[in-house]
């Protein structure tokens, strides 16, 4: 199990965060994640970096995509149990937690409110500091700490995000991103519309991966759109669905070509971003990071550039409470907290709008 390995890891935090003011006594943070389909509670204690608990309850739609109301219902039902289980796994009482971190955005409003409500309640009832965490920053921080990277070019891909970012002074800079829909969204909608999903993921393979197994590349049937370091997926999706309806291309070839173009666009944008930024490390994070084919492409690209490459351990690629707790820890030692009465959710909270005090490189 990957968790066991990361649990007792001896990660040197100073190599990742050179000027971090680590507290002399370990701090325990509980993190709550509820931005989309996963309700997660994670508990992290540091220094040294240790994951004490990681419990999740995932809402899987029986058909179609995430229906916010159903997702909320699922979360409300499972939240208390998930919290309890996490505390039990860590062997802690709630009093032994030093602060509560909660993902306040970006994400779906209704589901965000579930996590925010729980976070506010815990913080005010047990009189703990409440830490606001940006979901995107959390994905990056857990990747950085588990991969041991200090200044990477971050490729962050999930159902809602496709972003290429680098470290700026006290924040992250977005140097490339999708101009319309996210890569994960493009894969999900495509597989749904052609009738091979849900379920979207079977044994860690996406429906599109399974479908393209015996496919081959067909030249010139789908558009390829990379502009500078930005890319677009909506035109690709529309064109692929139109071809599917016509039925002129074999399904496995269509899947293969679609996936090939979708991943290549991201890899080429990242390639250019490396050229522009001059970074020497590439870090792949986010839910779609669990895709082996995408990871392979980015690895080949990084090697071609002479850069080191790492993808976040698969277990922590998807949404989880641990990454919120870890980012909460970083925020906590820099004194970033919010009074519970002001802890509003932010559905639209761009990565580059977040103050990140531990980013000291410019």
């Amino acid at each position, binding site marked *: 199990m990957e968790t066991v390995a990361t649990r007792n890891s001896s990660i040197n935090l100073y190599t990742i965060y050179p000027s971090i003011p680590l507290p002399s006594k370990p701090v325990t943070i509980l993190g709550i994640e509820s931005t989309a389909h996963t309700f997660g509670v994670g508990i992290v204690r540091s220094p040294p970096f240790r994951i004490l608990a990681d419990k999740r309850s995932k809402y899987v739609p029986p058909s179609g995509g995430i229906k916010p109301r159903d997702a909320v219902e699922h979360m409300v039902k499972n939240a208390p149990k998930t919290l309890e289980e996490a505390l039990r796994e860590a062997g802690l009482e709630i009093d032994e937690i030093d602060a509560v971190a909660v993902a306040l955005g970006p994400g779906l409003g209704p589901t965000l409110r579930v996590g925010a409500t729980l976070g506010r309640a815990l913080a005010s009832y047990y009189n703990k500091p409440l830490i606001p965490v940006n979901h995107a920053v959390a994905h990056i921080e857990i990747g950085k700490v588990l991969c041991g990277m200090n200044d990477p070019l971050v490729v962050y891909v999930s159902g809602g995000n496709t972003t290429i970012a680098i470290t700026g002074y006290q*924040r992250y800079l977005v140097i490339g991103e999708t101009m319309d829909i996210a890569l994960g969204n493009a894969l999900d909608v495509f597989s749904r519309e052609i009738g091979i999903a849900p379920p979207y993921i079977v044994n860690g393979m996406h429906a599109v991966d399974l479908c393209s197994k015996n496919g081959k590349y067909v030249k010139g049937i789908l558009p390829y759109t990379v502009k500078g370091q930005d890319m677009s997926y909506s035109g690709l999706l529309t064109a692929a669905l139109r071809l599917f309806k016509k039925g002129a291309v074999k399904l496995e070839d269509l899947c293969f070509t679609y996936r090939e173009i979708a991943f290549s666009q991201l890899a080429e944008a990242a390639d250019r971003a490396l050229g522009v930024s001059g970074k020497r490390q590439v870090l792949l994070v986010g839910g779609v990071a669990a895709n082996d084919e995408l990871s392979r492409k980015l690895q080949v690209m990084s090697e071609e550039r002479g850069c080191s490459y790492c993808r976040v351990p698969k277990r922590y690629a998807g949404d989880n409470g641990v990454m919120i707790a870890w980012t909460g820890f970083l925020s906590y030692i820099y004194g970033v907290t919010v*009074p519970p009465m002001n802890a*509003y959710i*932010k559905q639209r909270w761009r990565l580059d709008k977040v*103050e990140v005090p531990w980013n000291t490189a410019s």
Partner: protein
Amino acid sequence: MEHSILEEILERSKQELVAIGAEAQIWKASWYGYPAIIKVRRRKKYLHPQLLDEINVKRMRRETKILVTLAKTGVCVPTLYAAFFSKWALVMKAIEGQPLSQCLKDRCSQENIKLAGRYLGLIHNVGVIHGDYTVNNMIVTNRGDTCIIDFGLSEFSTDPEDRAMDLYLFLKSINSILPPEIAEDYFGIFLKAYSSVFNEWYAVKERLEEIMLRGRYVEERRLSTRVSDR
């Protein structure tokens, strides 16, 4: 058959590799006795070979089309000699001179800045944007002309945002090598020349101000030390 003979000539024309960019290798060459450069697009191992061929050819088509379009506008751009789509290679006239970036450090004449602005106006007038309009991509020739090179990222576009981005990139590139007052001065000269030939200056001006403002908000964000909790 004939094609392969031409390809052989292409290979023989190459003299020395002068630069490796993100997208292409640049070779110094002699094309039927004329000084030329050969730009060969890079192989990218992470792309499917057929996809790579597809996009490289597409981009070469665009680049050749733009070079030919611009040749009729009076802008000094490299003359296109030949295109080898199967080899991903473009043969262009070599432009002798020094980069404007170098020339600016030695305090070259404002005439070159004026030309850079005027040429960008002419480029935008025919619905083309350069995409990487920095002083590194301009060459001051011995006759004092300012030639524009590297249309690898250029596109057909009339979007004010794209056009304003060309202007903004130029501003950033002179800011990085000149003292602020002089850079501001030069950018004024540049804009004056640009707007005197470009017809839709007003929309671009508005967008340019917006882009520069984006930058300023960034500064303000940096100065604030506390996270806003809204």
